[in-house]
């Protein structure tokens, strides 16, 4: 690690102004749990780091908006999100997901904004917030823009965010009466990065599946919505043949990536099996309030 400049601005706008659209050595950090590992491994050598630790308090708050939407400041620690009564009652799938994310020490330090901006496809929050229809409010030098979380990612560790843009807030729309689940499948130690992550959201009268939303991660280069799989599920009865067909459709419409957690063929098998499991898991999880 070579010495670098560390700046601790006190406002978000100041932080944005300190970023540099053209210099990859200038980067913001929130909790730093991912960036510090990259620096230790020598993968990233900063010229300037901008700590977001001192920006306005409101970016560390969780609130419920007028239309029942959940507004999560980008600097909210993951553990705060995990234990928020609003999250636990309205979005139990988020709290459930966080309980399996890294460990308590990481969750106490890592922030929601960083967990979305990092772009590692193995992370758990992006598929879950994508399937819930969450939007990120992004601030840049020219003002703010709104990007659906599922549209943030362009590839492996790459996002649509410019180098001088920051996620300020995440808005999760008010929950409808829906079933949700995140199935995290690890193939080595239980604490490993997942080989496959599947987030599902759906409605049902107990017999038929409606409005299914399926987003996968970890086995793909980036967070990926399975549109054809959704079509297969919608309007079909909850039974093994439907789930089996959905699994086949999921395999047919995705390009999976081999790594130390499994070959492409093995991950296809996982996907084939786990789509149905994730749907069943969502139905078993019950209805969020």
């Amino acid at each position: 690690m070579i010495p670098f400049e560390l700046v601790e601005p006190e406002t978000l706008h100041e932080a944005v102004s300190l970023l540099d659209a053209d210099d990859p050595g200038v980067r913001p950090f929130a909790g730093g749990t991912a960036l510090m590992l990259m620096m230790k491994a020598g993968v990233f050598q900063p010229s300037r780091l901008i700590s977001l630790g001192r920006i306005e308090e409101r970016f560390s708050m969780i609130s419920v908006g007028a239309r029942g939407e959940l507004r999560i400041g980008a600097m909210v620690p993951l553990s705060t999100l995990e234990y928020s009564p609003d999250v636990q009652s309205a979005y139990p799938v988020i709290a459930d997901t966080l309980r399996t994310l890294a460990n308590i020490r990481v969750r106490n330090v890592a922030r929601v904004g960083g967990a979305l901006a990092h772009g590692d496809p193995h992370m758990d929050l992006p598929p879950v917030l994508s399937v819930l229809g969450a939007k990120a409010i992004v601030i840049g030098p020219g003002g703010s823009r709104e990007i659906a979380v599922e549209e943030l990612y362009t590839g492996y560790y790459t996002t649509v965010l410019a180098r001088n843009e920051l996620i300020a807030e995440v808005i999760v729309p008010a929950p409808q009466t829906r079933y949700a689940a995140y199935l995290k499948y690890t193939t080595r130690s239980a604490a490993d990065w997942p080989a496959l992550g599947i987030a599902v959201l759906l409605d049902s009268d107990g017999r038929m599946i409606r409005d299914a939303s399926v987003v996968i991660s970890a086995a793909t280069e980036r967070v990926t919505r399975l549109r054809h799989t959704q079509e297969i599920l919608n309007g079909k009865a909850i039974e093994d043949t439907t789930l089996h067909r959905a699994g086949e459709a999921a395999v047919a419409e995705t390009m999976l990536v081999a790594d130390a957690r499994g070959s492409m063929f093995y991950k296809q098998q996982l996907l084939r099996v786990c789509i149905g499991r994730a749907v069943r898991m969502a139905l078993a999880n019950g209805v969020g309030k």
Partner: protein
Amino acid sequence: MSISDRIPAGTFGSSPPRLESYAKVTGRAEYTHNVQLPNMLHGKIFRSSIAHGRIRRIDVTAAKALPGVHSVFTAADVCKLVPNPYYGPAFHDQPILALDKVRYVGEAVAVVLADDPHTAEQAVQLIVADYEELPAVFDEVEAVTSATFVHDELKPAKTFADLKHLAGRSNTNVIVEFKLDRGDVKNAWAAADRIFEHTFRTPMVAHTALEPLVSLAEMNGSTLTIHTASQMPSFVRIEIARLLGWPESRIRVKVLHLGGGFAAKTYIKLEAIVALSTLLANRPVRIAATMEEQAYVIASHATTCRIKSGVNKAGRVIARQCDVWWNCGAYADVGPRISQKSGFTAAGPYDIENVLIRSRGVYTNLPLCTGRRGFGVPNLSWAYESHTDMIARDLGVDPIEFRRRNLLREGKEQATGTVMPDDSIAQVLDRLAERMNWSAPFERGHGVMRYGRGVAVGFKAVIAPTTSVATITINADGSCILNISTVDMGQGSDTVMAQIAAEVLGITAQSIKVSHPDTDLTPYDMGTVGSRSTFHMGNAVKLAAEDARSKIEALAREIGLTKGSNYPWSELFHRRYGMQAGNIVGMGTFIPPYAAPSSESGHSANVTPYWMVGGTGVEVEVDGETGRVRITKLITAADCGALVNPRIAETQLSGAAIMQIGYALFEKMDFDGGQLTNASLADYNIPGMQDIPLALVSVFVEGDQQGGPFGAKGLGESGTFGVAPAVANAIHDAIGVRLINLPMTAESVLRGLHKIQGRQWGDE
């Protein structure tokens, strides 16, 4: 009364808190990583990027020119001080820095010393090496017949008589071939009713001690002091003294607490580089490996084991042939020892009339290997306990019943000819069967989740012949200091040694201070390896304490006290010397009887001072759709001798078992053209809390270990023998899939399942 209150004997067998526990939980325990030396430089190592090649040129100009860099050294500099800079415990084959050739990706080629580690690291990036690349060999079986030779000639160290005949041999990658012939295997095949043959493989795995390797050195007058996280301070002193041509007294090796060892911190690791750097730079130097770098300094052996058995109609194994190839990596390190000392147990803990073992250590262009908790026995038990189960199931005999028919029982000769002194193998198996409730029906399931159970037993000889020396000092106020070079790396040796001394002296363990190893002050010990300390150092400590006790008694007689008087020790000193003055020093030296195996037949009448015996029973849940295996119950039973400290013994057994869960299911160093691709803990997984079965049970088979201090013996590795094969046997029990290669990943399980279902797997 004095500090050491005299109490009746009885500390032995109780579980007093560990001596270092308060310091550890309050963050005050001393580790080498925290050692700061005045004016010290930080070293970082430039490593080879190719697996095999001749060094044409190393350009260090830009690195030297970087501000903050003090110096950059290569082998050429080392040779100015050490003309023959090769070291190693069995072979003198490893250069301090790569000389003429590099033999694996990650080999140390140059060292940069700078004011801070970051500058040193930056300077390392500026070094350019030009190599003439040579063909490389990675597989231990291919290396035997390969035309690529990792070393031009074999260089056995003179310390081992049985290796002398290898000196100067060239055009071979075979470091050593241990041979054992018992009975007449060739003719026995004809008498067998059935013959079974299988080949099993294990990958290179990492030790992953959570404290990575770290060493510092400084000159104090004419003495070179080395502070190092080492399991072998005495060896470090001897080997560095040999390299420099200095007397041992001019090298001082100091060791603090270790954050784990598992045999990674044995022999010479960073000590030679740090010593030479200090001498060349004339400044104190610290070199700390990162977790990722550690994997380039040391790994542990991959193995191929081919095992063939002949079984008669009664279900008795009458002949067994074992061919073992140990992938030692680029330097021998402990390879020749492991090939022999674990090699002679390759046929397993069974009573077999005809045995033939060929156990070869082989050079390859991979990181050098050393033992790893179990010293090769887990590699072998993986083969013989999977093989044994396969035979039993093929014959339709219950696997425990089949083992009982064939076990090596009390009074029977092990393959080397050494007589098994007790029936602990049978007792371990009996206790496993009992705790597994083996005779009761077992529900294997019908749906996606299937359930299975399996057992495995194993045994290990202790490294021999080895010596331990202890001194115990009784101060004039009656307080005690135990001086030993045993390294407490978390296994609790300080507490155990204090308990042994306390038992003899009739005081509490807590009242004894156990010094950290410091070769100027603590006497010789071969090393804290191979579960040898409780037995070897324990005996030395017992002798030292007995010596001190007899000197106290002599002192009491001298001043006219009645025999058996309860006078405080401080009074004895005060009466004798007229004030608080004087010392009593007790000393003990221990080396157990041993007979080396014959180099022709492998026979020995006394091949080990004691056997370690352990077994594992597991229940698993197998996901028939994804292949994921969850261990739901894990029972470890081991012969623990007489327990010194039951609480520590329990953590040794369960800790060994947990470590092996990773070995069984997912640990593997991945290489691509000799380049390790999963050096970090994010990519190289080890078991975490959630991988530990809810039912984790340790069962002690207690016996009186003849020759052990108060009947005690080592048990740090006994929990490692059975885990992987027991899991394999349980997977087979659950779904009928037999795995022969470690690790048993979810993918390999599912692939096996598809195979027996006649389904296509990908492009295969």
